[in-house]
């Protein structure tokens, strides 16, 4: 399956980004193939508002079934939840650290938004 981790850089060894909508990068990790692919999230965002909505739609279109992040605002949450994507918060360290924590079931799954909206 594909999981999305919000990151400050393009590599799996880069630090995670606590934001979802305005994260610098969205890293897609394919759990079967054990690969990491980076998407420049900032480059995808042109609109003045609704960064969370756009990022969430991109994540859904890209096939992510789970999102690992720090905080998720209400609109992004609505979009991801409607598409059946699970959202996990509390990531720390690097992208690889976050994936490890998820695999060990150490992350908190969000049942509602917990972040302030991205502008």
């Amino acid at each position, binding site marked *: 399956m594909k999981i999305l981790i919000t990151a400050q850089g393009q590599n799996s060894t880069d630090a995670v980004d606590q934001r979802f909508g305005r994260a610098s990068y969205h890293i897609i990790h394919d759990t079967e193939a054990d690969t990491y692919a980076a998407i420049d999230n900032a480059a995808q965002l042109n*609109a003045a*508002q*609704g*960064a969370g*909505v*756009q990022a*969430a*739609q991109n994540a*859904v279109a890209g096939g992510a079934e789970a999102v690992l992040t720090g905080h998720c605002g209400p*609109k992004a949450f*609505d*979009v991801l939840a*409607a*598409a*059946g994507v699970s959202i996990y918060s509390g990531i720390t360290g690097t992208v690889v650290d976050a994936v490890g924590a998820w695999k060990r079931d150490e992350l908190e799954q969000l049942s509602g938004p917990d972040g302030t909206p991205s502008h």
Partner: protein
Amino acid sequence: MRIVVASGKGGTGKTTVAVNLAVSAARAGHEVHLGDCDVEEPNANIFLNAELPTIRTVTVPVPRVDQDICTHCGACAEICEFNAIACLPRQTIVFEDLCHSCAGCWLVCPEKAITQRERVLGEVATGKADGLGFTEGRLRIGETVVPPLIQEVKAETAGHPWVILDAPPGTTCPVVETMRDADFVVLVTEPTPFGQHDLELAVELARVLERPCGVVINRAQEGRDQIDRYCEGEGLEVLARIPFQRRVAEACAEGALAIDVDDEVAASVEGLLRALEGLEVTS
């Protein structure tokens, strides 16, 4: 004649000038309607204390998706530039507060699954005070879409011989909406470096919008002539210099009309009125 009173900077006395000018014009016998277009923080009524019994809700159309007809083709989300509509495999979600009401999504939907719902932006309230008509626009708190409410304030003032609009501060969208069809723009500034810098921005906007403009120097003082020099260099007329009087500032802080507190101030506002009447004759 539609006069817009604006300033690049907040706090220069734009509302004070707009209100005192409107009252002065009404007392001189003109039929005046004042519109408070600073709909985020309307303050003009602090000076007028007008009863505003006529209240009208202002709405904008936003999409409503019939989920039973929707085939999730994504055309709506694709055309939307504002991320107000998200099309997902089993659901299409509308984020009404992001919608700019461009109609793109409902025009483009191949199944005609999108109709409209009216979303409340705020209200316009109208009444009379001190011999003039007055309309105040009140934006719902937290609302981000502003220009349509300002359009409604303008609509309420239309048809009167003298319309004076108190613009929002700054030079962004809401100010553009207020100023775009003005016959004349009065730019209020103060003789300080901050005041001059922001006056330059406001003049730039008036020029982009091709509106004739003139300048009022509020809180004018002996020896502070940087604005006069700037105006001379730019070919802008200084229509009035309202002197800084501490006791006037103190009284206005509590909502007094400056022209009733001090004769010098009254005379400079009258001078502004004469200058504007002169424009009316020539236009």
